[in-house]
């Protein structure tokens, strides 16, 4: 390491912070410091605000009424599906959306038509898997891994928390897997209801109606819960 510094300009190395010495600025380094002066705080703030607006997509939501699960709320951004929920009042759904979404929130039947259609088909039994883009930016990398693994569990099948943990390369993380599934922002579409304890028990369910809903969905899919 030191052999790279010895023989080179010590002041240069000091100016760069490569050695723990103070340096005597020369004309060049002073001019460079001037040329490369950073942006003012006000310029930075403005750029950050504009960046946030540019990155924050609008969020569209709507409700499917009269299903066997009651009112089902769905929300999607331009990137894809963001939320599915049921068994709660609309006001609660909207306030939780507002907490997570930076962009505008707009009710739109048109923007959510495909999502709503596929969910109705799923509940009717005419659709076994969903074909929808998902907005993964609202999740952490770990959550995404867990939920992608759950997505791969097909209709009428089940997996255990342990299997999911092993699948994502984190054996022994069944508890964290359970928590990530419990915070699934889009039950039904991402089938966290198909994940059980290793003893076959239902354990828990984050969607409206809790474990009873989990059991009902599994029965709907023809899974024998013994």
């Amino acid at each position, binding site marked *: 390491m030191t052999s*790279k510094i010895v023989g080179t300009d010590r002041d*240069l190395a000091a100016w760069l912070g490569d050695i723990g010495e103070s340096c005597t600025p020369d004309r060049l380094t002073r001019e460079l410091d001037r*040329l490369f002066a*950073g942006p003012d705080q006000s*310029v930075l703030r403005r750029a950050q605000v504009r960046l946030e607006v540019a990155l924050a997509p609008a969020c569209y939501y709507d409700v499917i009424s009269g299903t066997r699960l009651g009112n089902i709320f769905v929300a999607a951004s331009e990137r894809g599906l963001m939320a599915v929920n049921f068994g709660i009042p609309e006001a609660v759904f909207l306030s939780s959306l507002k907490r997570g979404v930076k962009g505008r929130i707009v009710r739109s039947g048109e923007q959510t038509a495909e999502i709503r259609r596929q969910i109705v088909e799923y509940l009717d039994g005419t659709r076994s898997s969903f074909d929808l883009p998902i907005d*993964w*930016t609202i999740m952490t990398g770990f959550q995404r891994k867990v939920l992608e693994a759950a997505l791969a569990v097909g209709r009428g099948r089940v997996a255990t928390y342990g299997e999911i943990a092993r699948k994502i390369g984190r054996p022994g993380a069944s508890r964290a897997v359970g928590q990530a599934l419990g915070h699934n922002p889009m039950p039904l579409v991402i089938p966290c209801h198909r994940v059980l304890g290793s003893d076959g028990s239902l354990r828990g369910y984050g969607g409206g109606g809790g474990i009873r809903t989990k059991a009902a969905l599994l029965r709907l899919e023809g899974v024998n819960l013994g």
Partner: protein
Amino acid sequence: MKESCTFDKLVELHSAEIFAYVWRLTRDPQDAEDCLQESFARAYKAFGRLNGNANARAWLYRIATNTTFTFLKKRKHENGRIVEMDPDFFSSGDGPAENASRRETFAAVARAVEGLPARQQAALVMRKYQELSYAEIAQTLGCSEDAARANVYQAIKRLRSTLEGHFER
């Protein structure tokens, strides 16, 4: 770091330094904003491929560097413009002759920096002004740590020889 980090969190943690970085490379307010937005737009698209173990900061610098290089090449090609200078910057208590001389020196330095190979300029900015380690610079530029260090030192040496006549020693 990445496993527990959402994209929005990455933006929150690093947008200020990435902006300062592209600002220093482009030296134009609008261009800097455009490069910032384009860099994060690309980072969003590539976010799913970011490895759990990877250094997210170096990854962002890599994207910002490539984005800005592309932008600068295009800018140079389109109008051959160098940095515009704020005339107020040069007014001081001194007389017009001193100000003219200062302006001329600044222009000469700016031209010399523009004449550097892009990687050398970027390496210099990353080391001195963004305070990245040589390891992080190496990750950003896709080279070895030795090459990263060489890029920085060569940048200065090159500037020195280009500007030799300009500064009284």
